[in-house]
């Protein structure tokens, strides 16, 4: 249960403790202040605004836009399920996505409500892993999916581009791990004291 609380602290966006977070971590779970909602707009300019693909050059972004998949989900539709294997990472383009995890009693616990341009299920793009959480659409949702096989193919032909994405992915994972440790062992006290100072 403690672990679940930690994860909840980690993922659930709270405006009040937003400031002490690492900037890159903030970018992961909070709406990017510079992000412009452009439903049906240019895919390349959307990808440029995401944390995961923000480092890519225009040519690389165009190449990426040719291999990603645009998906639409209805309200309440399941995007990914806990325990099932993952084959793609998702970036939220419009709408909201609820990240949940089943508690010991079987009850679904809401961990986070993601807004654009947040990404989730990133580890599925790196290796064959069973998902540890579920994702469900809240309202009509538009997503951009990048398959593990697509990323592998990109790495085969354009290793530099794939390397940038993987570096960014590692950075995101490290930031999440850091936040998990902080929430587990320090309960956010450090952040509080830092804020008081």
């Amino acid at each position, binding site marked *: 249960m403690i672990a679940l609380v930690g994860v909840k602290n980690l993922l659930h966006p709270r405006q009040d403790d937003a400031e002490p977070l690492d900037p890159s971590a903030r970018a992961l779970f909070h709406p990017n202040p510079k992000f412009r909602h452009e439903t049906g707009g240019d895919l390349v300019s959307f990808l440029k605004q995401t944390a995961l693909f923000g480092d890519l050059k225009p040519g690389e972004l165009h190449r990426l836009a040719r291999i990603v998949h645009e998906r639409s989900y209805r309200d309440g539709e399941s995007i*990914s399920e806990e325990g099932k294997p993952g084959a793609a990472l998702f970036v939220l383009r419009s709408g909201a996505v609820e990240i949940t995890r089943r508690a010991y009693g079987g009850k679904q616990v809401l961990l986070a409500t993601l807004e654009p341009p947040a990404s989730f299920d990133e580890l599925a793009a790196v290796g064959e892993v069973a998902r540890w959480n579920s994702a469900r659409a809240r309202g009509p949702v538009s997503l951009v999916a990048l*398959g593990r096989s697509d990323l592998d193919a990109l790495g085969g032909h354009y290793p530099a581009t794939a390397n940038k994405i993987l570096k960014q992915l590692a950075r995101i994972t490290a930031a999440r791990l850091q936040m998990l440790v902080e929430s587990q062992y320090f309960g956010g006290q450090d952040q509080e004291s830092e804020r008081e100072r």
Partner: protein
Amino acid sequence: MSARNEGLLAGLLFKSLVGTAALLLAAFLLWALRSLIVPVLVSGLLAYICRPMVSELERFRIPRGLAIGLLLLVVALAALFVVDRLRTLVPSQTGAVELKIRALYAINERYRGLMDLDPTLTKGNRLYQLVRADSDPLLDRVNQLLALTPEERSLFYASRSGGAATSNSPDRLLDQDRANLQTIDLRTRAARIAPGAESLPPRPAGLYEGSPAGGPVSYLAQLLSNWIIAPLVFLFLLSDTGQLKRGLLSMVPNRLFEPALIVLADLDHALGDWLRGLFLESCLLGITVALLLTVVGIPLRWAIGIGLFAAATNAVPYLGSAVALLGGLAYALLAQQIHPLIPMVSIDNLAIWVIAAVVLAEVIKSAVYEPVVLGGAVKLHPLVVVIGVTGGAILFGFVGVLLAVPAISMFKVFVASTARQLNAYGLI
């Protein structure tokens, strides 16, 4: 029954009807357009092979269109070079006639020696008594096939009398031709004497006599109209930068999106592994055949040629070795002198050594190359391969034979991967 349940039932019924209609329509279209399946598959396979080369060129900032143009140019130049080289190997008209005379003489002499035939060609050893019912008609067919037409005979005599003989032993060739005529005459008589035997049927006057109804022109036109689509499909697939895959996946329901991604990746891996493995295996088989044939005494130039043909036809199961065997035996039949690296080999037993060399090459291929090179690719039971290849030949002719193994392999991977993913995602 509540109104909600009735609505659900009606919806299910409607979906089932639409699904069945779609399936029937797809089956009908597949059957109606079956003549286009092979051209589309062949061009798709070629585009799949060429895609990595185009992507490699794109890495050097060459636009995709230009990269495709460059690739086609290189292929065209290579084809021109190969055709030019092959033209030098093709004998002249007189050379071909001389080759026919020598081949026919050698076949008849070896048959006579093997069966220990008497001068009338009607009595022979025990082996002859045992197999004459099958072997005599076969030899008659070969004689009929290799016998010179009146035009070829006049050409041959003109080349002898005009002093433009291409052979170093013109007298010997004339003797061989006379012997061939005599043998044909004797065989015809023997066929007439034999009880219930049919006489030799007359030789067809033209090349296309006996071709399908409508003649060669309409057959060629039909073939061209089917295959005209192939270059268009090839170019379209080669210039595709992922739209096709994305379009295909966009039609897949959300809950099947990730399983479909994995199935497509599995198919891609399987096809890539099979093609890479086949290419390596073909190269190794070609080199092995060339080396072994050189060892038994076939000149290096001809051994390399036979090895190349064996490698090129290895895509069809067992055809590579069959081509090597036929090529080697043809050389053994026509050879006048050899320089073997093994002392036991002579002109008389060269055919046996050729058979041994090709069998050894096939054994090395099956025992060493296939496990090492094709180890990661899809494995099929030999019986499945034979039935598949036969089925492919019945349905689509030679191209069906060529595509049978990859098609069965891909189907196997598709079924296995789909079942695995649907199970993993809890959909079945």
